[in-house]
């Protein structure tokens, strides 16, 4: 995809995504979200704005929820990344995925990947959050379809599922 840029600009970027090693070429200016979507063909992570507000591009990077449109691909050299494609364990959905499905936590699904990652980051630090804590935890993920009611309900349900399963969530992020 970057094939026309002169070779000297291109840098090989290698990182672990969803437990697997990926490698691709990037210019210094290539945003990590474009690298994931176009170079590594993981299109579950989405883009919704230019200024780092909407959160549709949120991924896990070295254990932290991060907006991948505000990170350069080169900065992810050697990083440990989890995207929405890595939440499920084979066919077994992660409890937070099940909770969103059962509680209508999504409609168009465009913000959902980022919402799942932010929800999961919150639950890993705060296994039993209050409604206000959930709302602050997803303050960086804008949604236009749901009015957030069922997203908050889904994250609360996910919290119970993860506690009842002894927290053996599909994979530690």
């Amino acid at each position, binding site marked *: 995809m970057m094939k026309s840029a002169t070779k000297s600009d291109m840098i090989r970027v290698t990182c672990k995504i969803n437990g697997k090693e990926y490698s691709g070429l990037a210019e*210094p200016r290539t*945003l990590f979200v474009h690298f994931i979507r176009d170079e590594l063909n993981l299109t579950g992570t989405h883009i919704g704005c230019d200024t780092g507000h909407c959160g549709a591009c949120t991924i896990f990077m070295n254990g932290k*929820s991060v907006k991948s449109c505000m990170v350069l691909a080169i900065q992810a050299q050697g990083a440990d990344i989890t995207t929405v494609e890595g939440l499920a364990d084979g066919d077994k959905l992660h409890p937070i995925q099940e909770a969103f499905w059962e509680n209508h936590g999504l409609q168009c699904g465009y913000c959902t990947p980022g919402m799942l990652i932010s929800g999961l980051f919150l639950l890993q630090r705060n296994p039993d959050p209050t409604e206000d804590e959930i709302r602050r935890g997803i303050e*960086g993920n804008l949604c236009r379809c749901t009015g957030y009611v069922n997203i908050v309900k889904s994250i609360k349900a996910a919290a119970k599922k993860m506690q009842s399963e002894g927290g053996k969530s599909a994979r530690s992020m």
Partner: protein
Amino acid sequence: MTPKKFDYYSPTSINEAIQLLHDNEDSKVLAGGQSLLALMKLRLAAPSALVDISKLQEMSYVREDKDYLGIGALTIHDIIEHNQTIKKKFTLLTDAASKIGDQQIRNVGTIGGSSCHADPAADLPTALSAVNAHFVIRSGKGQRIVPATEFFVDLFQTAVGHDEVLSEIRLPYLPPRSGSGYIKHSRREGDFAIVGTGVVLTMGDGNVCKDIRIALGAVSATPLRAKSAEEYLKGKTLDDKNIADAAEIANEGADPPSDMHGSKEYRMEMIKVFTRRTVKLAMSRVM
């Protein structure tokens, strides 16, 4: 949009970073990148090279030294928000850090990056001005320490030279019976301030104010100290009347911009309202 082309350097030490900055005239430091990358994607900023210091984890720490609390320039907002020492001794910093953007931004944005970006409407520069923090600036020739009053020079401009790096921020411990607070008045919680107010005060005996610093954000090219309001309150009892009178003159020297979220007149009035509220917040935290 995508950013314009630039060269990228990933130094493994501060000194290497300083050297790279020195050798590349139009290069910029990249720390958390939350402000810089947004402007580059809008193609408003187009530095020719970025010197990425975000990997220098030795610059991320909160260390209690003898007479100041040292915070590494690359300490992210999330750490500052949850650090118990800061919460106890410099509560206004916890107030400020917890209101920046959202969780993802607080996971990446750094106190040094925010200070060097020096947006007058940003939360930490105002809070650090109220604490009169000292900024440790490293260069090829060694290191120098600049107080907040001289660190923020102009709109988006600080004392950090082109080939210098901010390495640490030092918060002089507050004397006993001190309290602090920061309130951001904005449309949404995570937005830039319409008016940001940071207050650090120390009580003498009998509810008399021994010392007070009031810093205001988004009302001038740099965080503005409300000097006349400070002078008015020193030595006075902090009752509602005195606080209200001080608040009336807190906007002296302010020259706020006008935009769709807050006109100049509105911001001048809000300085009064939030000076009053933040002084009371700081008082409520006096141990």
